[in-house]
């Protein structure tokens, strides 16, 4: 059993220190780690490799073997089938929804954390409860609302509900960050006569950057990959988003599997790019944002 001396307890400061490198190699852990690596990689490998096969003879070859005649024809098919339209639509709804969500949530977080009064407190509880609302439960009434508002088959129909549903979690995460901005900074700005907007602009936004980036990335991934709402609320090809493109390759009774998988690869690439850029943020943001 370990017991700490008083001095050792007191010397613990920032909890973000990393464990020192251990010279012992944890073999079972290593083996487990590589096993899980195989589990993760295998389906991804399968998707990539299969996308390079052609439909003829698809079932003749070993699904995990490198194809004898790899071809990019599936990628061409996908790209030619309005891929850029879907991509643009996905990008538009993602950017607009995320910007709107973050902007609106940051304002709300600031108001909740630094505000007093029943309105702020009730709002916070409302958002808390909102986390447990399953989105599909509201599908039918939302569909009715969207059609009455004549927004059916528009990108707005995808953006607005997405913002609505992303707000609770975003507000909660941002609140926690904003809470940590020292009160003194607020008060000194207030004394200088700063209004709410200036405080937001000069103080809150810069100091909550890590959290903002984290929620932005998290929300972006959710909106980009969402497919139930686009399925129900849009119909024309000009309004379709990327996940719908996967469905486009399913014929009435069977599908062109290699083409679908090529579409999967293509539609994941932007996420992958964002991942490469933003991984540090996601990790560091979550590191700081979630409890120890």
């Amino acid at each position, binding site marked *: 059993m370990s017991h700490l001396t008083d001095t050792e307890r007191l010397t613990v400061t920032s909890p973000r220190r990393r464990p020192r490198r251990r010279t012992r190699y944890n073999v079972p852990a290593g083996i487990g780690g590589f096993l899980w690596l195989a589990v993760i990689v295998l389906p991804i490998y399968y998707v990539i490799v299969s996308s390079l096969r052609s*439909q003829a003879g698809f079932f003749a070859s070993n699904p995990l073997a490198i194809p004898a005649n790899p071809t990019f024809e599936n990628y061409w098919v996908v790209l030619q089938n309005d891929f850029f339209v879907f991509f643009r639509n996905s990008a538009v709804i993602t950017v607009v929804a995320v910007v709107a969500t973050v902007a609106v949530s940051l304002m709300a977080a600031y108001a909740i954390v630094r505000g007093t009064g029943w309105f702020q407190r009730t709002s916070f509880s409302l958002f808390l409860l909102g986390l447990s609302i399953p989105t599909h439960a509201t599908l039918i009434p939302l569909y009715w609302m969207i059609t009455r508002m004549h927004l059916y088959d528009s990108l707005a129909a995808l953006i607005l509900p997405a913002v609505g549903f992303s707000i609770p979690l975003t507000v909660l995460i941002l609140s926690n960050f904003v809470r940590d901005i020292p009160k003194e900074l607020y008060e000194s700005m207030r004394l200088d006569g700063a209004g709410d907007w200036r405080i937001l602009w000069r103080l809150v936004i810069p100091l909550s950057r890590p959290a903002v980036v984290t929620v932005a990335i998290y929300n972006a991934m959710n909106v980009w990959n969402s497919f139930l709402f686009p399925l129900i609320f849009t119909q024309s*090809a000009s309004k379709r988003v990327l996940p719908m493109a996967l469905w486009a390759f399913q014929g*009435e009774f069977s599908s062109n599997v290699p083409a679908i998988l090529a579409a999967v690869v293509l539609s994941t690439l932007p996420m992958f790019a*964002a991942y490469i850029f*933003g991984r540090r943020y996601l990790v560091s943001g979550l590191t700081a944002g979630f409890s120890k």
Partner: protein
Amino acid sequence: MYFEVCGVGTKENTLALRSKIDRRVAVLAVAVATAVALTSCGTPGPVQSPDGEGAPAANTGSASAWVMSGTAEEAFNASFARWNDAHPDELISTETFANDAYKQKIRPAIGAGEAPTLIYGWGGATLADYVATDSVIDLSDLLDTTALGEDLLPAVLQSGEVDGKLYGIPNNIVKPVVLYYNKDVFNDVGLDVPESWNELMAIVPKLVDAGVAPFSVAGQAQWTLLPYFAYLVDRIGGPDVIASAAEGTPDAWSDPAVTEALVKIQELVDAGGFVNGFASISTDGGADAALLYSGKAAMMLGLPATYDNVKTGMPEFVEEGNLGWAPFPAVDGGKGDPANLTGNPTNFWSVSADATPEQQQAAKDYLGQMMDDGYVEDLIATGGIPPVNMSEDKLAASDDADYFQAMYEMIDSAPSFQLSLDQALPPVAGQELLIQLQQIFLNQITPAEFVDAMNETIGK
């Protein structure tokens, strides 16, 4: 839920973090902005559906049609393109949908009053529902005013009728379910294609011994199991059994033909009649057809799409004449005519009641001339029989002449053509049937339980 924060509170940490993050955020922001800008600027022009160069983008003015993606897509699009070129004053714009997506969307669209002018459908209970809710208009006059009355095959035309009036015009190939088989396997094992159910049960053990699965089926899709049930009920009890269930006659499912059919199905399953793990096989990608042409299975019940899948997956197999086709076996002592067919008689165009009179007129004009030579040939090219009276020469001229001629004869001489059960029955019954039937195949329930569950759905 609590997300507690600790550790980032100190001013020093946050400020130190700031400069490093500033740069990274800037890079990220620039990257994102560039990506968005590129994609926004770089889109090709008004990329709508492939409805021909001359057609304008979809707008509220012109008539519209929702086209199903898949094998007949090109035929549809070519036909609309020809029409639009010849009739610039009565344009029809198109949108293309995948099968599942279409089925999800058409109802909400109709409900929202935003249905396309030309509505694609399968007939059956759905069409009856559209008629009951006044969502589609009566097209019976087209039979007299255009050539459609003479050209269209009567059995097929019937499926587009509700209460004696025509609400759907056939637009696709006739799709009967037939028995496809691997000739090589039969030759190797020394068997003949079964013509009766008893013969079928007799060859099952021999195929199993030879290490071949008697039947391939994509059991996961559920609807692929329907033909076995539909054919058996029809062969044993005749077409009236299902017809009465579709009409909602109380206790229609208690007809002994139903129970006998289910018993036979379970006997087939128990005898090893279906490939191992059949309930895991999905129709995506044609894995079921692959079992047939790779020799792992001997037979398969399928729509013409199966023929297509085999051709796409292994062209040599068809070219060398290894793919055989036969009608579903007869049942000795059964009331049904062995020439009866089940499947999808065809697909239909209906005209939306919510469209403007001009749109409706454009749609009707289009439909009247739809079955021109070009269209018929395009349909044949998709691998099936168009729903029209055909001359022998047309069929003989095509690539798959033998197949087409055999199919045409089957269709032309079929006394009745039962629509796929999940379409023929009202939605609640149809969906319940899919679930119950799958459970029968998996030996999870008894025929009696099936009958009870299905009787419950009557009138819902």
